[in-house]
């Protein structure tokens, strides 16, 4: 018998079942229900947009890695996830070249040039969105679509909502009264919570996003810290800084009518660009929430989740640096004679 060749590797010889790609694809799947809903209410073109976005992200990843002479990482799922998330933060009516350019920017500039997965310090999908928001401002602010419903559900549509205005736009520029007139009844609330309202492809349905997020929590892919503190910060600040004075603000509209759930569960929890320790995550989430409200109430845009997360991304290396794991025990003092 020939001498058997044994494989020699370092310990440990057991590995947990999760892998980078399994995590990425799990997140990907957790996002899909919302895509289905969007395709249903905004039309199947949404699927085309998502397809272009994912396809160009994969293509860009392959091409840029090839150009740099590096190994192929298309299968690890991170590029596909970036593509999907990018599509999720686009209005459903944008032209098809937007997701392409956005994905190329996200993957090439925001991620691969900085060393690829693990070294991008801004969330690539959100960076792609920020890039598109300045590069294609008109499409990014006007390409909203009124949700269309199959007959039996048409009663869920908010009655006479202004086309091409997202709920947050109404809230910011027409005021709370107008918002409540459009969405204030039970049908309006149902539309907001279930996702039958104009908005970005992936942000409309808090329920489905919460389901997906819950699944990720259950699978322990994300922890509760970031989403909880982000939602709490938004709710608290929305309540405190009300339009009518202190502690009068509308909490629910701010929670349910923007991209908060998408941001809190799927964007701000991105491993690479958020800090790792629980305490740092709490601060990070609270910061995201606070900046979101700052932009919504005082800033130039109706929605602030994207920029809030990007701005907190700047801080996550700092938070990682400041908040370190608690060591098992302090080092031994230089008095060996005494018990510490």
């Amino acid at each position, binding site marked *: 018998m020939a001498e058997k060749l044994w494989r020699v590797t370092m310990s440990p010889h057991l590995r947990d079942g999760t892998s980078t790609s399994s995590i990425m694809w799990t997140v990907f799947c957790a996002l899909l229900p919302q895509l289905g809903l969007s395709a249903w209410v905004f039309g199947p073109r949404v699927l085309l947009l998502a397809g272009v976005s994912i396809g160009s992200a994969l293509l860009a990843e392959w091409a840029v890695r090839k150009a740099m002479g590096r190994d192929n990482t298309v299968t690890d799922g991170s590029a596909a996830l970036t593509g999907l998330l990018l599509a999720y933060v686009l209005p459903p009516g944008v032209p098809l070249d937007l997701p392409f350019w956005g994905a190329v920017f996200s993957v090439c500039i925001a991620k691969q*040039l*900085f060393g690829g997965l693990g070294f991008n*310090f801004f969330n690539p999908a959100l960076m792609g969105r920020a890039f598109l928001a300045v590069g294609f401002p008109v499409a990014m602010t006007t390409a909203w679509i009124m949700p269309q419903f199959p007959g039996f559900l048409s009663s869920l549509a908010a009655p006479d909502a202004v086309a091409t205005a997202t709920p947050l736009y109404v809230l910011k520029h027409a005021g709370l009264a107008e918002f409540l007139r459009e969405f204030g009844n039970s049908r309006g609330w149902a539309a907001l919570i279930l996702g039958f309202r104009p908005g970005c492809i992936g942000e409309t349905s808090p329920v489905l996003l919460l389901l997906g997020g819950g699944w990720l929590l259950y699978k322990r892919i994300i922890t509760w810290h970031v989403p909880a503190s982000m939602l709490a910060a938004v709710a608290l600040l929305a309540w405190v800084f009300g339009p009518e004075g202190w502690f009068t603000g509308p909490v629910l509209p701010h929670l349910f009518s923007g991209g908060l759930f998408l941001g809190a569960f799927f964007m701000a929890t991105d491993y690479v660009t958020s800090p790792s320790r629980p305490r740092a995550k709490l601060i990070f989430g609270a910061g995201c929430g606070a900046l979101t409200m*700052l932009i919504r109430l005082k800033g*130039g845009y109706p929605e602030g989740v994207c*920029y809030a997360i*990007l*701005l907190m991304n700047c801080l996550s*290396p*700092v938070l990682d640096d400041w908040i370190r794991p608690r060591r098992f025990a302090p080092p031994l003092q230089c008095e060996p004679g005494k018990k510490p």
Partner: protein
Amino acid sequence: MTRRALSAALAALLLLALALPAHAAGLVRAGAVADEHHITLELAGSLAAGWDWPGNVSVTERESPDIPLTVTGVEISPDRTELTLAVAEPVAEQGAYRVALRHVEIGGVGSEIERFLVRKGVLATLLSIVISAALIQNFVFSRYLGLCIFFGASGRKETAVGMGFSFGLVMTLSAAFVWAMYNFVLRPLHLEFLQVLTFVGIIAIFVQLLDTVLRKVNPFLFKKLGVYLVLITTNCIILAVPLILVGNAYDLWESLALAIGSAAGFALALFLMACVRERLELADVPEVFRGLPIAFLAAGLFALAFLGFSGMSF
């Protein structure tokens, strides 16, 4: 402990500054622009019953007392100590508005005509200058100034902190000096054309002075900050701030606020960039992008992220 108490007190003060608009001694205690079409007035007492607004309220911009704005409604709070005036023309938080109430009786005191100037409080103005200079109009990421030093001193965190600190020191002191120089010497003597020369001279002298004093008084601090002092003279921000404060005709406090805000914004930018660059050293950046090119791209991404602050107003 004391540090925590101090920062808490500071935070409380800032909140207070935000919360409290201008105060006055008359029958109207305070007023503020609530939103685009509403001005709220806080009365010193409760408004006597029977007063009705048509014909008794006028609102004008401060600059145009002769062009009345159209008041479309007045809402009186249940306890009759707050009035909300609805105005047809858009009003801005940054603007100043004259409000006149006629034939009112407030808290038992009657007045034929009660005038009040609605505008932002001093502290709120200063705070908004600081925040604007630090974040909204961040010199590095939104105005693209001070980049040489930004890229030069953001390699390590310690360097960034040292630079940020020395910069803040020089910036604040020289802004005060420049303000005085401009308002008491250059302007009265109509020597505005010597602006650049004097400003840069003041800054250079200041840096030299600080260098000399620090070297003698606190060699330790000098060892830490000395290197940066020389560099400061070639930082665009150090000259841009005086030019801006002169251009906007700021008063001393506003000038100081601008200086502090821009120094804080610069220090923040340096620090964030240093954190990122320290991490980038570990990254597998393509060969040709190592060093400055990738730092530029990173700064570009920062600039995109900082667009989130654009259009913000306090």
